[in-house]
């Protein structure tokens, strides 16, 4: 089941920077661009799994810190000559609050 879950506020992320959110399905990386756009993608480069949250953010793209693949934050697709893509996560802003559309894994209560 997908839910809008609050993951923080826009002020938690530096401009041209990123923060991580840990989820039961792995880490997601949440980016804030110079223009205050917020994007979220899986924190996993399609090339060799590099942590995209650690890359340099420029425009609406991030450069992976391991091998310099450039990934579009909007589509999750590798830009330039490289091919591959990473899952994007829908984001909604409510004032300063950031909500992400996430699937909640369910465990049975004891």
């Amino acid at each position, binding site marked *: 089941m997908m839910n809008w879950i609050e993951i923080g506020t826009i002020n938690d992320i530096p401009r041209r920077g990123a923060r991580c959110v840990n989820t039961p399905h792995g880490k997601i990386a949440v980016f804030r661009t110079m223009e205050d756009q917020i994007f979220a993608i899986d924190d996993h480069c399609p090339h060799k799994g590099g942590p995209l949250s650690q890359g340099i953010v420029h*425009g609406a793209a991030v450069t992976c810190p391991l091998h310099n693949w*450039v990934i579009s934050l909007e589509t999750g697709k590798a830009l330039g000559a490289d091919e591959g893509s990473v899952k994007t996560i829908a984001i909604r802003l409510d004032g300063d609050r950031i909500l992400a559309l996430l699937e909640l894994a369910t*465990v049975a209560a004891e």
Partner: protein
Amino acid sequence: METAAKKQKLVVIGNGMAPGRALEHLFEMAPETYDVTIFNAEPRVNYDRIMLSPVLSGEKEFEEIIIHGDGWYIKHGITLYKGHKIIGIDRQAKTVTSDAGTIESYDKLLIATGSVPFVLPVPGNNLPGVLTYRDLDDVNAMLLAAQSRAKAVVIGGGLLGLEAAAGLKSRGMDVTVLHIMPTLMERQLDPAAGYLLEQAVEQRGIRVMTKASTKEILGQNKVEGVLLADGTTLPADLVVMAAGIRPNAMLAKEAGLETNRGIVVNAGMQTSDPDIFAIGECAEVAGQCYGLVAPLYEMARVVSAQLADDADAKFVHSETPTKLKVTGINLFSVGDLGEGDDRQEIVLRDAAAGVYKRLVLKDDRIIGTVLYGETSDGAWFHDLTKKRTDISEMRDTLIFGQSYQGGSPLDPMAAVAALPDDAEICGCNGICKGKITGAISGKGLTSLDDVRVHTKASASCGSCTGLVEQLLVLTLGDSYNPSAVTPMCSCTDLGHDDVRRLIKAKKLKSIPAVMQELEWKTSCGCAKCRPALNYYLVADWPDEYADDYQSRFINERVHANIQKDGTYSVVPRMWGGVTNSKELRAIADVVDKFAIPAVKVTGGQRIDMLGIKKEDLPAVWADLGKAGFVSGQAYAKGLRTVKTCVGTDWCRFGTQDSTGLGIRIEKFMWGSWTPAKVKMAVSGCPRNCAEATCKDVGIICVDSGYEIHFAGAAGLDIKGTEVLGLVKTEDEALEHVVALTQMYREQGRYLERIYKWAKRVGLDEIRRQIMQDEVKRRGYFDRFVFSQTFAQVDPWSERVSGVDKHEFQPMAKIGYQQAAE
């Protein structure tokens, strides 16, 4: 005789621009419907609040900005209570009560309480001399304070703050603007335009401090100064808080109306009580509050129609351009300035004229516009956005504005050919076209450098380089072969050397400054140019440049080396490779405590702990710090290691104290940033156990002194060092090594190792400057020492103390939800 129909009672709370406009519409549409009563907390009639800045600056008188004089209220039979603040609404009884005790009943109520200035919650914010900027009383208080011609601090570098600052300055005060963000008006402007604005504001003699966070307002009985979070104290006799506004929804909230940030209204401006409406800055419609006048007037139009029984009138959101009302500063901003894959941008920068234009396009339509310096086409661009005009036909000339549209697209070469001989090509040096083409044919010039030498054209800022090259092509035809300067990246046509030269020549001290003045083709650079620019600025302006962490590679941002699985490795400094039992024990304890999976001795004589989780880094450093360790900067484009052998202390062949000299060099030079990594070594005798002859800089101790080597490599390329020269004393050895490194710091291209730089510059030239030219050597040495006073801060202890905390913790942890039973 009875009147045709009994008039309803309309009570208006607030007498600003929005209700004023609403009543004008209402009296036109339904003149006989309402008896109107207005309560105005300000003791005056309705005036044009957005024109307060010209009143403050002295360009207008208050009388000139009055919208409705007393006569207007009389003419329309309005009862206006001046200086009455409403303190309660009784929705059951349908009455309002003012602070003077007046009770008035209503059939319909219109709330237009506007907004309240945001007052920073810092100590001293209520001292006499601390003002906000909202109404005429504030302006009068500022004017009174300005008579002292003393010091004013304006907190907030947005629209209001800058207007207040310009006004106070023109009244003779010494004004400083504090802004918490890195660039001014960051909500409306992108960083490039923000930079130009900052320049223009400073040119008026107003000091601007960005990234300035106010901690406290100082003073005993009145304001005496402002204390910033970084410890700076600014003396001040007047402090103006212009850090933003908040919708004034308190009264509505107390009356039980639905409020959020503002008073929640539907598209008909109706609150949760059908007899109560709200408009202006206090209203929140479709989740949005407004502060600019155009949408507020639109609200006024809607509410008057609703009050006149037109239920179809609905408020529709529209973007409003921002303009700054400071004489002589032209800026225009509207729409969506974000970047994205599906978007393209057209950027025009004219550094000489101080012009910056940026259009954001999506699906061949303009969705955002920023204009600085030259704003006459703002309305036209905005109109294209509103009409969703397809601009693909005029795309090539779009940025030049309306007057360039139609006609055939310009061929740049034809355009240059068509220029008259007296057309100025190089604005910096005043060189016209005829002089350049004359010199090319008359003196037989064949290259850009020739033209620069003979005419000075394009020799200063370089922004006319393209034009000069076109003139070379025009004059020489195919025989001109443009010199192959490799651009730094696709964001610019300039090579690294030109960029470095221009940073110094034009005194560019921030990344937005470089991008504007050197006419960058993108608004925010890329992962190639940003780290390079950041290094050049750190190296050239060590005391003035504020390091931009977001432009550093991750390793330099978190002071550890990222590994293939996203964990990090940590290498503490071991001066000269020397350690002891206490240090080793501390490392062993850290390895156990944090379950560090791998420990390895490095080629640079120290210990690497691999596989540390990012979240654990600050705690690891804290423990290492307690044992006296500082960061080994094993991640830095900077000084890495100084490898040593045991020298005269132990070795039967040692000629000098190589260990001591290595440690001395490392302690002197740690923390310095360089174009690429720098590894050094000191060997105690020519047997060279420290392998000094394949390092960036190496020293071989001999009986007669110290032989200094440089430009070795043992990585992608393998190369033995070159000899720089022989010096007699340890002091001289240190001075020469430091001077050599500084020369490289000033000339190297980002990521260019010393051996490549040396090959490019010439070994002889380096020897001449460092070994023979004492003045040059001392100059390099002194500049390095100066730069070190800012660089030698241990990044680990800084992080342990809480700097950049956000880097190391996830923003959120989303757990499992429990299934309902």
